[in-house]
């Protein structure tokens, strides 16, 4: 019944429901919390559409002719998501052609779009201190290497071919050093890929060969200046995800959420200025209610960290 009445929500915001439809919808909303919440969320749209000038503006937008399908395809291909998909398809095609004669050899692993899942030194220390959970053997770490601010313009650069550096332990340092510690186990070799349609539209993707990290993320929508976009996290263990943004003073807390194992959690972000943003997502087993958005804050104890590079388009 609720599903049927939910279909009236679009008419509520536009103010076109008949008296019978309104009566049915409101009576149901009074009894059903989810329907009531959905109605309440429509209030902003209803408020906007009640203004004749806003309706005129939207009608004008609807009257604008849609570009030719070919032009839309080209425009879509120029968007970061389109470029990424096109590059992925091209890579898959090349891989299929190259590997087709050797089909008997099992495929190594399927690349997945996740980014730099790196258990930091802090996480290793934490897991070692917890006797209840068997701590993994500490992995050899290499000191942070200077990363190029902009990835290479080539479609892909296989870093896996490079010989692994000599193992050494990174010194405990400031938060940036924690985020930049890179485990050098062979399975963590990464393949970086840059796609984009010019400055401001570039996205850096990293294709990791495994999904061993406890925390993964994906970006919902193309980040644009002044517009909200979402980060979707998935974790193999419950806890709290805190997102920090790097600036000259340190790590600034910008968002956080509770996360359950195997269930996605979302945070919404917005940057008013275009450009590259370096974010640090921390999966923590402890809640930090004192974290305030916008404040420079000490990093919470980390079970895992994720370094996220976001290109905010103008």
């Amino acid at each position, binding site marked *: 019944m609720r599903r*049927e009445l*939910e*279909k*009236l*929500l*679009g*008419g509520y915001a*536009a*103010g*076109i*429901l*008949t*008296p019978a*439809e*309104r*009566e049915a919808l*409101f*009576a149901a*909303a*009074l*009894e059903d*919390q989810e329907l*009531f*919440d959905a*109605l*309440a*969320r*429509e*209030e*902003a*749209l*209803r*408020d*906007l*559409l009640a203004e004749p000038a*806003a*309706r005129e*503006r*939207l*009608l*004008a*937008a*609807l*009257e*604008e002719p*849609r570009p030719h399908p070919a032009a839309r395809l080209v425009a879509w291909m120029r968007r970061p998501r389109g470029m990424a998909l096109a590059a992925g398809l091209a890579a898959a095609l090349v891989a299929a052609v190259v590997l087709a004669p050797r089909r008997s050899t099992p495929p190594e692993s399927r690349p997945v779009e996740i980014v730099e899942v790196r258990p930091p030194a802090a996480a290793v220390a934490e897991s070692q201190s917890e006797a209840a959970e068997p701590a993994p053997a500490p992995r050899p770490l290499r000191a942070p290497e200077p990363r190029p601010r902009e990835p290479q313009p080539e479609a892909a650069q296989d870093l896996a071919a490079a010989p692994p550096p000599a193992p050494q332990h990174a010194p405990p340092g400031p938060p940036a050093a924690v985020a930049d510690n890179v485990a050098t186990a062979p399975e963590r070799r990464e393949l970086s890929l840059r796609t984009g349609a010019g400055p401001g539209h570039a996205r850096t993707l990293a294709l990791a060969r495994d999904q061993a990290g406890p925390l993964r993320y994906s970006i*919902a*929508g193309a980040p644009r200046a*002044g*517009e*909200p*976009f*979402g980060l979707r996290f998935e974790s193999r263990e419950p806890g709290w995800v805190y997102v920090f943004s790097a600036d000259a003073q340190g790590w600034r807390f910008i968002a956080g959420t509770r996360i359950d194992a195997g269930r996605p959690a*979302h945070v*919404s972000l*917005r940057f008013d200025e275009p450009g590259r943003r370096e974010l640090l997502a921390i999966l923590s087993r402890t809640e930090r209610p004192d974290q*305030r*958005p*916008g*404040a420079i804050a000490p990093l919470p104890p980390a079970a895992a960290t994720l370094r996220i590079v976001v290109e905010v388009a103008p």
Partner: protein
Amino acid sequence: MEPSAARNEMLARLRERIVAFAASRMGRDTAEDLAQETLMLLEEKYAHVERLEELLPLSLRIVRFKILALRRKSLRRGEYTQVSVADIQLPDLDADSAAWVERKQMLERLARAMSQLGARCREMWRLKLSGKSFPEIQQAMGARSLNTVYTWDHRCRKRLLERMGGDWEGKS
């Protein structure tokens, strides 16, 4: 049931719904206060409104304004934006400027998202914005049944909401 008794029952239900909705966005205590203030307003200023078809949209509108006011108050107090004194900007004393900008941004996002919809959804929205009711839209679009129109509109609304990032105001 007498009109006043029916109204009181409706208000009691409304209070329950408002508290639950507000509690999902803010603290439970604040949600209780907000619901109480909304009901007081309905009692004192809108005592003549008795029908659910008027009472529910009115209460939703009041709740939205009160939530927005609470957010702005928190921002003014710096409850969630602890920044260096040197970074604090001079306040704009025009009380409605923030709301005006948010509204303008939402309109532009909505216009952009609508222009990207497919032909059927654009036509659906065009008819809705022209004030056509669902039965009228059924005729205009040649749909077999009213349920078909409801389904089309539901899908179009969902697609538009997805293009808006899952929230009309972009605050989710």
